């Protein structure tokens, strides 16, 4: 899987309230949610970004609430991936479950600037900054998660298991 887009730079501890504020949580559609992505942090963000753009963040991205609306809003706005130094646990889980590609890297991403053209090779674990011709490595998914991602997330995983687990219901 190759993902390409311009870098959109965020810092540390970007919480789920900043990603999608509570007042928009009565919505369940990802495209509608995407219209209010980062509203309180960067009010004009969804107009400035383009489809395919990649979020580059620091530590603890997605901390706070369990709202799955957060990865859905990112996906719904057209962001193709998030790469960060670390993610909050529930956000990480939700992103895997809803099919938003996210990657963890221990490399320092500070030299990437807003708008740099990025390319992510997910299977090889390489992020390329095409503007600055610099590469960064990231950790591949553990085997269990890779299987989950490859079959299309938790829904497909469950659908495959359903006959077995429902026979006792």
């Amino acid at each position: 899987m190759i993902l390409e887009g311009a870098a959109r730079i965020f810092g540390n501890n970007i919480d789920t309230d900043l990603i999608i504020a509570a007042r928009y949580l009565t919505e369940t559609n990802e495209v509608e949610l995407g219209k209010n992505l980062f509203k309180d942090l960067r009010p004009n963000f969804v107009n400035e970004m383009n489809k395919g753009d990649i979020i580059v963040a620091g530590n603890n991205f997605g901390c706070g609430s369990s709202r799955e609306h957060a990865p859905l809003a990112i996906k719904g706005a057209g962001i193709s991936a998030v790469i960060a130094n670390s993610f909050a646990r529930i956000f990480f889980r939700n992103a895997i479950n809803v099919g938003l590609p996210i990657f963890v890297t221990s490399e320092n991403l500070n030299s990437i600037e807003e708008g740099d053209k990025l390319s992510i090779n997910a299977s090889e674990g390489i992020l390329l900054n095409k503007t600055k011709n610099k590469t960064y490595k990231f950790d591949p998914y553990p085997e269990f998660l890779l299987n989950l991602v490859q079959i299309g997330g938790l829904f497909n995983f469950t659908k495959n298991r359903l006959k077995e687990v429902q026979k006792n219901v």
Partner: protein
Amino acid sequence: MGKTIAEKIFSKHSKKDVKAGDYILANLDIVLVNDITGPLSVIEFQKLGDIKVFDKDKIVIICDHFTPNKDIKSAQNVKMLRNFAKNQNIKHFYEPGHVGIEHVMIPELGLARPGYLIIGADSHTCTYGALNAFSTGVGSTDAGMAMATGDTWFRVPPSFKVEIRGKQKKWISGKDVVLNLIGKIGVEGANYFALEFCGEGLRNLSIDDRFTISNMAIECGGKAGIFNYDEITHQYLESLGINAFDYIEADKDANYEKSITIDLSELDYTVSLPFSPDNTVNVSKLEKTYVDQVVIGSCTNGRLSDLRVAAEILTNKKVKDGLRVIVLPGSPKVYLEALREGLIEKFILAGAAVSTPTCGPCLGGHMGILAEDEVCVSTTNRNFIGRMGHPKSKVILASPAVAAASAITGYITSPEEVM
């Protein structure tokens, strides 16, 4: 090598001998959703086909965030959940009049027990760790799929030992303990870890203090915040008529990747300043900080003992002119007990507004939204940017005692200053 409480609970629920780092499927005792996360869960569940939930008695739907419904969309969402509950014959669905905040109600209903494995599509599901359960927040898809299968996937977390020592002075509460912990280790300090609370100081922490501490385990990234079982847990469960369960103890040689000690006798009144729960400071070291609103309630501090503390401080006193004080009992049971004890009367005589049980303003839902540049001192659990309303408003997290004292003076105040 011995096992932690988390490793033992996951071993029991996966019928495997598991250790930290293992990826497993584990059976669940309770699956919880609310009116924000539930609709997404049900949409995903229904895509699986015309099937029944795995156990109609183990699914809990509590519509608490926007209750009583604040607008048409929230009403439509609850209507959808109500229909789902009816069609699936789900036992634990509650309407206004019977509904309160999920994390206050679930222990009250006797649904959380020692040794249980509980998931909830709400990050503060970790609250039931106070009762020696492994309970953790997940997303809507997780909860929706678990409604069908009765299990879900986990990575067994490593554990972080928090040893509690000493005895606290009067008015110091579980909130001061947990804000202090978060301030020390940071909002990411326990990311992916299960916190285990132990030590001789536990005997000085009431069950409500423990609920408050476990509730905020997520604010330092904790996957769970589990307390050792003791006489206090025993008495609480016995008061609910619950006797049948197996509590879980860690082995003496269990492996902890991190550990910290908190001495209760050293704690002072602690608040978290905007915009992060780890931005903590002692009230005595704070410059005079004026507030526009005081909120006492939430899944963190909306229990009877919290209201008792606030009422004791507000008795025969008046809320400062120009200040709004909102008290939100956590459940109908809490509300009724507070009424019978005369607490509600004390709040109203002091000039506070008392709301029906709801999450309300905690997440900027309704019942106390802040305007631009306004400051609120709140017993809730988050002070992120825009959390309680306008992106330029501010929330300061505090205990019920500090919140009530601040209601009298109009600035962040220690209870000793007004008592």
